[in-house]
C-alpha cells in the first residue's frame, strides 16, 4: 500500500490535483482512498459529482464518535475511488490539527485505511504539529509538494520541506519528499523556476500542470478532467502524473532554502 500526501499552500489547487490524480490512478485499476484534510471539505467534491459529503468531524460533533460508523464517512465516488473528508471545528474555535489526528484514528479503528494507494490532501500553509500529523505518524510516507511559481506558494512548499527534514530525523520516521508538482499560474519562466526550486531542495519536478480551461469546464460539470474530458491534453498530464507517482522510487530528505535564497531564486527566473 502506497500512502502519499499532497501538501501545499491553501488555494494552490491541491484538491483539483488530488482528485484528478486519484481518478487517474483508479483508471489504472488501483483501489484508491482519498482523504481531504481541509475544513473546507472540497477535496473530494469533483470525485463525488459535486456533492459535499458529510465530514468526520461534523458527525463526531453531532453524535459523538461512538455513534459514527464507516458507512457514514466513507463514500464511493468516480470509478470506485473511496472518499473521506476530515472537516474541522468552526473557524476560530478548538484545535483543527487535533481533529485531523482524531479522524485518522477513527478511520484506523474502522479498518478503513486500506487500498493500493491512499491520497491525503493536506493544507500546508498551516504548519502546526496537528497538520504535520499525517507525516509524523507515518500515515503519509511520500510527500508531494504542490506549488506554483508564486513566491508565497514556494514559501509554503519550502516550509513543508523544513517539516519533512525535521521529522525525517526521527528514528521511526518513514516520511520522505517524493517530488514537486507545479500547478502553474502560467507565468513566464514558471516551469523552470519550480524545477530549479525542486532541484535546490534536493528533489525534482515530477509534473508540470499548466493552467487550462479544461479544468474549469470540467468543474462546471462537477467532474474531474479525467472523467469529463479524458481525451484532453490536461487529462493526459494527470495520467502522466499518476504513472510517475506509481513508478517513483526517488524519495529524499529535502534541504530547505533560506528565505533570501528563495527570494533571489524567484527574482532570477520570473520575468517581471
Amino acid at each position, binding site marked *: 500500500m502506497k500512502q502519499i500526501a499532497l501538501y501545499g499552500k491553501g488555494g494552490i489547487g491541491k484538491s483539483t490535483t488530488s482528485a484528478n490524480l486519484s481518478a487517474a490512478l483508479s483508471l489504472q485499476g488501483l483501489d484508491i482512498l482519498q482523504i481531504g484534510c481541509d475544513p473546507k471539505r472540497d477535496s473530494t467534491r469533483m470525485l463525488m459529482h459535486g456533492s459535499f459529503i458529510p465530514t468526520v468531524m461534523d458527525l463526531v*460533533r453531532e453524535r459523538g464518535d461512538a455513534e459514527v460508523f464507516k458507512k457514514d464517512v466513507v463514500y464511493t465516488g468516480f470509478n470506485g475511488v473511496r472518499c473521506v473528508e476530515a472537516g474541522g471545528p*468552526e473557524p476560530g*474555535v*478548538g484545535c483543527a490539527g487535533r*481533529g485531523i489526528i482524531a479522524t485518522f484514528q477513527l478511520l484506523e479503528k474502522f479498518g478503513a485505511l486500506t487500498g493500493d494507494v491512499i491520497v491525503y490532501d493536506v493544507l500546508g500553509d498551516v504548519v502546526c504539529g496537528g497538520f504535520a500529523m499525517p507525516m509524523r505518524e507515518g500515515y503519509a510516507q511520500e510527500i508531494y509538494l504542490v506549488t506554483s511559481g508564486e513566491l508565497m506558494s514556494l514559501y509554503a512548499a519550502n516550509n513543508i520541506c523544513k517539516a519533512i527534514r525535521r521529522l525525517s530525523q526521527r528514528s521511526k520516521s518513514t516520511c520522505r519528499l517524493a517530488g514537486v508538482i507545479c500547478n502553474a499560474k502560467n507565468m513566464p519562466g514558471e516551469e523552470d523556476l519550480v524545477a530549479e526550486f525542486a532541484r535546490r531542495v534536493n528533489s525534482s519536478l515530477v509534473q508540470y500542470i499548466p493552467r487550462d480551461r479544461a479544468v474549469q469546464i470540467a468543474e462546471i460539470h462537477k467532474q474531474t478532467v479525467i472523467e469529463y474530458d479524458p481525451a484532453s491534453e490536461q487529462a493526459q498530464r494527470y495520467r502522466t502524473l499518476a504513472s510517475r507517482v506509481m513508478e517513483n522510487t526517488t524519495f529524499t530528505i529535502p534541504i530547505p532554502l533560506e528565505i533570501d535564497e528563495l527570494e533571489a531564486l524567484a527574482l532570477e527566473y520570473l520575468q517581471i
Partner: protein
Amino acid sequence: MSLKPLPLNTSRFEGCTLTGALSVTTSVRNSISVVHGPRGCAHHNFSLLHATSLEHDGIGAPAIQSSGLLEKEIIFGGEAALEQALSHAVSLSPSCIFVLSTCIAETIGDDAGAVCRKDWGVPVIPVPTGGFLGGVFEKGVNNALCTLSDMAEPRSSEGTVNIIGEKNLEFEVEENFKEVSRLLSVLGLFVNTRFVHNISDKDIAQIGRASFNVLRDPGACPVGDHLKVRFGTAYIPSFPAGLAGTIQFLEMAAAAGRVPFRSAVADEIALQEEVLNGFSDLAGSSISPNGLKMTSPVYSIVREVTSALDMGFSDTGCHVPVPLDPPVGTAGIQRMLHRWRRAIHA
C-alpha cells in the same frame, strides 16, 4: 545524613500558576473554584490542597470542580463544557464562583471571560491561570488576589489594616497571622480583612476600607501596587522578620497608621530580651549553615539571632532546622529557637 530535603533542593516557589491561584480562591468561604481544563489539572491541585488543609487541621475538602475537557472539547472548543460545569456549580448555591483557566483552555482559545459574563445569578469571576503562559505559583497567587480585589469598592476607615497574600499553604500560617495582629494591636491598630484567608465574599468587599495594607512578602508587591492604584492604600511590603526587623515593622506600621510608637517599641524590645534570656543556655553552642546561602533572607536572620545569643556558626556545628521563610516577628524567632534547642540537646 539528613533525609530531610534541603530548601535548596525544593521547587516550592515554582510550579503552575493554577496552584497558586487555587490556594487563594479556595480560601474564600462558600465559593466554588471551577478549573476549566482536563480533569488532571484539577485533581492534583485538589489533592495538594486537601492534604495541606488536613495538615493545618482544616476541615473538609477544597471546593474545586473541573470542566473535564476531553478530546472532543479540545477539537471543537470547550466553552459548552464550561457552561455545563458552571450550571452545576450554581446549583450548589455558592456565594460566588471563580473560573480558573488552564494550559489547554488557553491553547485552544476558549473565551472563558465571555462565558462568565452571562447572567448566572451569582458572581462568576474569571482568573487567568494558564500554566504555560509563564509565571509560577506566586504569579497565580498575585493574579487571583488582583482579580478578587476588583470585587470591592473604595471606602475609608481609620485604624484598620488589611493582611495581603498570606501563604495559605505554609506551615505556620495561623501563628504568623497572630503575631502580625499582635504587633498591630500594640499600636492600637486592628485587622480589617485577611485577603485572602478563610474569608467570605462579604469580607472581600471590605478591602477598600483600610488605612494601609501589610503584604506577606515582597513577592506580593504587584498586588500591593494594584490595591494602591485602586483604593489609594499604601503598603508595607513584608511581614516582620528578625529582631531588628520586627522593631522596624512597628515603626513603619505606626507611621502608616499615623499612631505613636515609642512605648510599643520599648515594650517589644523588652519582650525580645526576655525571649533571648530564656535561651541563654544555647550560648557557646555552634550551629551549621546547613546549605543556607548567604544571599538568602533567612541567612541574615539566623546570623542576627546567633550573634545575639553568643552562639557559633560553622560547618562543624549542629544541624538545626532552618525555616524556608524568615521567621515572623518575635514569636517566630522564639519558635525557631525552641526547635534549635531540641536539636542541640538531642
